[in-house]
């Protein structure tokens, strides 16, 4: 199924991704601390990544070996080389690695959930690094009235900001007495749309507004309902014990309020961090499946 997922692939030898997998782990997103030796640099995403997580629990050296035109060896070595900038991330076809790994898994007789999880974690880190190189530059939607790039000391100082505030306050007062009609709601026309005036971030803001509205609705209805993280966490663990695995998005959807859904989401992150559960996203932005880890430590931290 060719999908938007295959943009994770390298510009090189691509094929549709079938199961680009990633472990949902709180250590992966941008909250990564700068690596002790990698930090002194240009601030690029590669230098800022801390790869200690995979390094401290490396894949079994006897295990899966990656074979690419420009690299051969275990995945943790590959990550190390990328971090040291010995290997260019854009030359690494993530989809190929993933596909071959899945084929390799298929040949094994016994699954080792930990080993697989480590691989997935590293794959996630790879994807993260790569996504950083793909992120957009600022889109200029309108002409600037001041030069765009500036360092902190070129920002307009605070005393002058205060002067502007006074000015804006007067203008606001003036305008407050003038009324315009609210926008007419125009129905959508048939035919092709031309989206030149809609930016990517309009889309994000639209979703933001949506979440906000939903939040307002639920806040009205369920005001006063207290949900503790501890309760929600036990609830998740119970559900996992009963059902074996749960589809986490479905689980979030089933929550009565956005607040509950957010709490459930935090709980999931906590449980992953405590290594009590394991979450696997079968495809990026696809369903997240959650399992109880068999060797789960009795959870004592909240």
């Amino acid at each position, binding site marked *: 199924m060719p999908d*938007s997922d295959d943009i994770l692939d390298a510009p090189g030898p691509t094929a549709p991704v079938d199961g680009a997998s990633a472990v949902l782990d709180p250590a992966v997103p941008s909250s990564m601390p700068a690596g002790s030796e990698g930090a002194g640099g240009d601030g690029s995403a590669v230098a800022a990544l801390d790869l200690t997580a995979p390094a401290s629990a490396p894949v079994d050296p006897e295990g899966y070996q990656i074979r690419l035109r420009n690299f051969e060896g275990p995945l943790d070595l590959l990550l190390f080389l990328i971090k040291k900038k010995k290997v260019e991330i854009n030359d690494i076809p993530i989809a190929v690695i993933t596909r071959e790994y899945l084929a390799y898994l298929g040949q094994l007789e016994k699954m080792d959930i930990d080993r697989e999880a480590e691989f997935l974690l590293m794959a996630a880190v790879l994807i993260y690094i790569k996504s950083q190189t793909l992120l957009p530059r600022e889109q200029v939607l309108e002409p600037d009235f001041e030069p765009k790039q500036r360092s902190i000391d070129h920002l307009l100082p605070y005393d002058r900001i205060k002067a502007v505030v006074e000015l804006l306050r007067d203008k606001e007062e003036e305008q407050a007495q003038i009324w315009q009609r609210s926008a007419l709601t125009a129905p959508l026309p048939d035919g092709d749309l*031309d989206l030149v005036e809609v930016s990517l971030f309009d889309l994000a803001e639209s979703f933001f507004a949506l*979440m906000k509205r939903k939040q307002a609705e639920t806040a009205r209805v369920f005001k006063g309902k207290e949900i503790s993280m501890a309760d929600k966490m036990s609830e998740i663990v119970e559900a996992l014990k009963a059902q074996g695995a749960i589809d986490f998005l479905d689980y979030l959807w089933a929550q009565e309020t956005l607040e509950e859904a957010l709490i459930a989401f935090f709980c999931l992150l906590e449980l992953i961090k405590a290594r009590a559960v394991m979450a696997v996203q079968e495809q990026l932005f696809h369903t997240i499946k959650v399992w109880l880890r068999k060797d789960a430590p009795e959870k004592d931290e909240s």
Partner: protein
Amino acid sequence: MTENLKSVLEALIFISVEPLTIERIKEVLPEDSEADIDEALRRLIDDYAEGTQAIHITRAAGGYVFSTKPAHDPHVRRLLQIERRKKLSGQALEVLSAIAYNQPVTQPEIAAIRGVDSSHALHTLLENNLIKISGRKEAPGRPLLYRTTDKFLAYFGLNAIEELPSADELKKLLEEGNS
């Protein structure tokens, strides 16, 4: 004071989102007599009807409303055509964002997020190839699943769906608003 009353009515009719009814006018202006209001309304309508303005006051749905005179229809239609061509409606944008952040997602799920039915917007988005049907959900009724398309990415100048501000970033904004 009829001159002033007339002017007030003009402002009220202009600003009202729906056709402004007599009942509503009386609520807003309890101190004016019904006869005065009627008289002022009549004169206001006559003034616009006889004047050279491009807009006039008409009755619609039991209330008064400003509208453009029929002579300007071709231009008005042209403008609306141009405006609409350039913009997705807020509705469609909402549905699109709900899909972008939750894909693959079913129509009932989208409806649950938005709190209103989304079938019209969904249809428009499908027709414009911004979304596609990507399968069925393994759930009662096996509803269709929707995803954004490559055309969606191209339209928004995206390389990947991750380039949108993340749900985490949005969530953070939400939380800050509540504190």
